[in-house]
């Protein structure tokens, strides 16, 4: 239904290309993401399975032993599935949707009732539940990012390509009387923070964007390609063993060490 009219900016299909050969697993993206999106520090009892990391860097190994052992890092966030988005259709109360204007999978914690059905549906484990109410050490709440509302316990949250930054870019454009944003004004926090410049972000439908070009590279692939979810996160690697593991369509294809 949504058509490009004078009232609306042109539709975009935002995506990322992550170069696994550049990523050294430092974790800057994870920290920048938590700072940007007001994700609180862990509760004392939180673990790798109950914490909240919209951006999460996974460590994979080639399965060989010393000295042939090699490791690589795979940053994983919401893959912003473009087709058959697994989480959207399952939400009972429309707390998840794909925004046709940006292609971003929106998650609305304020609408969410915390049934976690979307988490069961997501094959990328990119969704996180607030097992606790968020808590910041005294005073640190002053350092919250004003563009992103903190969540409450009992709801699901996930990466939304730093939507607060999209808002800021929109407002800046609007103040200048423009409807379309300047791509330079909208870069998610992880992209900005990555010290090795491993992440490239942009409109995949805009052929001139670096992201769109990199996504077409022969070294590019996506996770779980046969599920038909058409993610908008692409990965690049020139290391055969990394590609073998990361682009496998199931755990069965991965050689076990």
């Amino acid at each position, binding site marked *: 239904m949504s058509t490009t009219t004078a009232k609306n900016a042109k539709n975009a299909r935002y995506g990322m290309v992550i170069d696994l050969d550049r990523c050294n697993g430092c974790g800057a993206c994870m920290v920048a993401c938590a700072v940007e999106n007001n994700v609180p520090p862990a509760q004392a009892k939180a673990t790798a399975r109950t914490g909240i990391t919209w951006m999460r860097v996974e460590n994979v190994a080639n399965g060989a032993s010393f000295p042939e052992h090699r490791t690589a890092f795979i940053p994983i966030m919401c893959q912003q599935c473009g087709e058959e988005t697994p989480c959207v259709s399952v939400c009972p109360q429309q*707390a998840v949707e794909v*925004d046709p*204007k940006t292609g971003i999978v929106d998650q*609305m914690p304020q*609408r969410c009732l915390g049934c976690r059905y979307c988490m069961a549906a997501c094959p990328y484990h990119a969704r996180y539940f607030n097992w606790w109410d968020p808590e910041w050490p005294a005073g640190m709440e002053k350092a919250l990012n004003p563009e992103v509302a903190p969540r409450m316990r009992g709801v699901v949250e996930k990466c939304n390509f730093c939507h607060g930054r999209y*808002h800021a870019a929109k407002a*800046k454009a609007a*103040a200048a009387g423009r409807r379309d944003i300047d791509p330079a004004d909208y870069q998610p926090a992880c992209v900005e923070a990555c010290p090795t410049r491993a992440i490239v972000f942009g409109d995949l439908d805009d052929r001139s964007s670096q992201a769109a070009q990199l996504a077409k590279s022969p070294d590019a692939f996506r996770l779980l390609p046969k599920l038909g979810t058409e993610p908008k996160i692409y990965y690049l690697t020139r290391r055969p063993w990394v590609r073998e593991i990361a682009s496998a369509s199931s755990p069965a294809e991965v050689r076990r060490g």
Partner: protein
Amino acid sequence: MKHSGKISFFAGFAVMLAVGWAGFPRLLYRGTPQPLSFSHKVHTGEKAGMKCEDCHVLRASGSFGGVPALESCAGCHAAPMTGTAPEKRLIDNYVTPNREIPWLIYSRQPDNVYFSHANHIRLAKLACKQCHGDHGDTDTLRPYQEDRVSGYSKDIWGSSISRISFGRGRRDGMRMDDCVSCHREHKVSDSCLACHK
């Protein structure tokens, strides 16, 4: 005996209707007077002749200044101009000790709402009145009414608890439904994160 049952039933029914429609709204809101009286009328009237955006500025970054900081007031009222009692209070309590006035914002949305004045003023070309009504012409500041349960300003729900209003064109209430209906009417984005953050 046969009818007394019906009578007591309908008595209960009627009492509840009265409580629900007349008593409940009063109980629901907590009224707080504004810290200082302020007349928009005086400032926007012929004498001062100011425009809304003179004080409520839209910054170049696209963010909205909201209720102006004390320095805007002090710009004119550093020394008494009119000699009225509220002005004296402004100078004595706020300007001289350089303390911000703790205004209570009628139209304040919760933290999870993203509202861009830039989008609505510059692109949609809405007039202030379309959402804020004749607030700019008022002579006094009404008390701020806070919903005791949700903590929202009464203006969010709207003045009528039934949300049926017979106003003249302006939307009464600033609930999500109100935003969405206008967005749909004008065929602009109504996706969640378009207005939530």
